[in-house]
């Protein structure tokens, strides 16, 4: 009991030193939470853009289609499939697509690409295609053979809106076919690698080339909520056993991988922060002990045992740590909430780099509620471990020598 009072009052003996510890604990916690908030925001943003601008929640293909992109492997029961999708309450929107692997050739060169035959109205809802346009007016309804290409590809092949190019692929019987298209727009998504590999044409145009009028290779489904993904997949799979129905996680395993890689990175960064914090605490507590050598020697001489002395050092560290936690927590909460609303612009950090990893340049950090308890516990454990060395130093003091000082 008296030890508690002593520990409490000892903290106030050297206010600036105590303040330094409290501040480093606060800073450590703040940095730890902010790193996680940034990563969480980035990952959430990445997943949102993956779902809402790239792959949707679910995609349906014929079983073997994605192996070779064989044009003849279009969806067999398309009308009943569409009927069923329309009747599924979880579905918010869907789009049909035809897909072909092929080549884009211009006067200056050629590039391997994937042609995505789409329906602009559906696509605007399902993948926000319209929002990605950065040049040109996009598909005009009546015109045939229009094409949208990505910014990266346009740059690489020095193409502009209005240029003509030739698309070549094989039709469903295996014959080489090609068609001349005019560039009606240039798009940019948050994933520049994807932009380089993909072009958009209208589905009817592509179907003409492939000789599969009225058919589709792919149906993309957007659901009302992300959480409905698995149950809806199950439900549709039960009805269409032979079709391949994949979730966004299955469609983009690299995103899943990135989420776990980023988790690990954030733990490493937090580890480094805590390491620095540990040094601060060790240093400060050691100074506090050395300054009180005589006092500690006197207490030991009187009969204070090692456990009681250890508790004293531990309690002092605990008070300081607990003092820092609310400051670190609330400042991290304030900043991440502010940035969540107004965004954090990374443009200066290299827009190209961010885009090539599929991240947008404005991050909206998200307070990592689920990881707060863990982070605080880590900070407390670090403080506890850091005070062990100073505490052991105190225990090693010999009363006789300490008193002679």
């Amino acid at each position, binding site marked *: 009991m*008296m030890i508690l009072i002593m520990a409490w009052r000892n903290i106030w003996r050297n206010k600036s030193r105590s303040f330094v510890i409290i501040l480093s604990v606060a800073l450590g916690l703040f940095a730890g939470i902010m790193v996680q908030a940034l990563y969480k925001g980035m990952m959430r943003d990445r997943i949102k853009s993956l779902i809402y601008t790239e792959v949707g929640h679910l995609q349906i293909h014929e079983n073997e289609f994605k192996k070779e992109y064989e044009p003849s492997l279009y969806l067999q029961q398309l009308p009943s499939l569409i009927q069923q999708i329309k009747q599924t309450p979880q579905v918010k929107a869907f789009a049909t697509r035809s897909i072909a692997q092929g080549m884009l050739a211009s006067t200056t060169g050629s590039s391997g690409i994937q042609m995505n035959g789409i329906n602009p109205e559906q696509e605007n809802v399902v993948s926000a295609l319209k929002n990605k346009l950065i040049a040109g007016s996009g598909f005009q309804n009546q015109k045939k053979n229009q094409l949208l290409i990505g910014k990266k590809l346009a740059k690489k092949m020095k193409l502009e809106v209005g240029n003509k190019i030739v698309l070549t692929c094989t039709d469903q019987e295996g014959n080489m076919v090609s068609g001349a298209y005019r560039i009606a727009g240039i798009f940019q998504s948050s994933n520049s690698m994807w932009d380089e590999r993909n072009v958009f044409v209208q589905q009817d145009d592509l179907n003409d080339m492939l000789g599969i009028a009225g058919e589709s290779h792919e149906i993309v489904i957007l659901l009302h909520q992300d959480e409905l993904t698995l149950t809806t997949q199950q439900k549709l799979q039960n009805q269409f056993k032979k079709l391949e129905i994949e979730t966004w996680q299955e469609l983009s395993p690299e995103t899943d991988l990135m989420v776990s890689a980023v988790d690990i990175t954030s733990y490493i960064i937090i580890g480094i922060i805590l390491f620095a914090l540990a040094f601060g605490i060790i240093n400060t507590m050691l100074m506090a002990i050395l300054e009180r050598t005589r*006092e500690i020697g006197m207490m030991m001489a009187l*009969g204070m045992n090692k456990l009681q002395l250890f508790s004293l050092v531990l309690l002092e560290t605990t008070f300081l740590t607990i003092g820092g936690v609310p400051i670190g927590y609330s400042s991290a909460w304030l900043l991440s909430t502010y940035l969540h609303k107004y965004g954090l612009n990374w443009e200066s950090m290299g827009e190209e780099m961010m885009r090539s990893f599929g991240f947008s340049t404005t991050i909206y950090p998200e307070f990592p509620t689920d990881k707060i308890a863990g982070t605080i516990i880590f900070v407390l454990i670090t403080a506890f471990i850091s005070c062990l060395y100073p505490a052991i130093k105190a225990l090693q003091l010999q009363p006789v020598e300490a*008193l*002679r000082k």
Partner: protein
Amino acid sequence: MDNTVIDAHNISKIYNKENIPVYAVNNVHLHVEKGEFTALVGPSGSGKTTLLNLIGGLDLPDEGSITINGEDITRMSPNELIDFRLKNIGFVFQSFNLIPVLTAKENVEFIMQLQGIDLGKREQRIHVLFDQIGLSDKLESRPSQLSGGQQQRVAVARALASKPKFILADEPTANLDSQSANNLLDIMYKLNQEEHMTFLFSTHDQRVIDRAKRVITLVDGRIVSDTASQILPA
């Protein structure tokens, strides 16, 4: 009935064994009985502090044995010694006796808490003790708010708190003016007379020596004289 509280037998403490050995305490025999009021005198460096530390179980002798109240403390483990000190020996040091963050009352109460004395008894005893040292009005003062003499009196109260077998005081008046020194000695002497508390204190202050009932003189770690004082203090 055996009244022996301290029985040191042939004890030596040697520093610097590897090079030129220094016998800080050299083959000392010391026998102290209950109720003594004994001064340990000698010039600086004669081994007073070392001898008191050995008797107080703060340090272990290189040779010989020390028996306190029938228990050989030279055979105790470090933890047993801590507990033994806590329960049997009162200490008053030369300076820096009190824990600066605790009030006078808390300084005394702290040691009683370590001794496991319950709250009611503590309160009662604290009032008696502070009454005896004449500082009942300074219970809530921090050490920094007390004079040197007052601090030493609180240290005496603390040493008494556990009702120890004896009190060791290493130059308790060294940093005090003569009036405060006298005052402290008065209190110690009164406790010795009225409660038969045994005191063993070191000093090289002649006025303090004059008030001792027995004077042991150390030179170079050896006892050179051990005399009962002729003039018994009033």
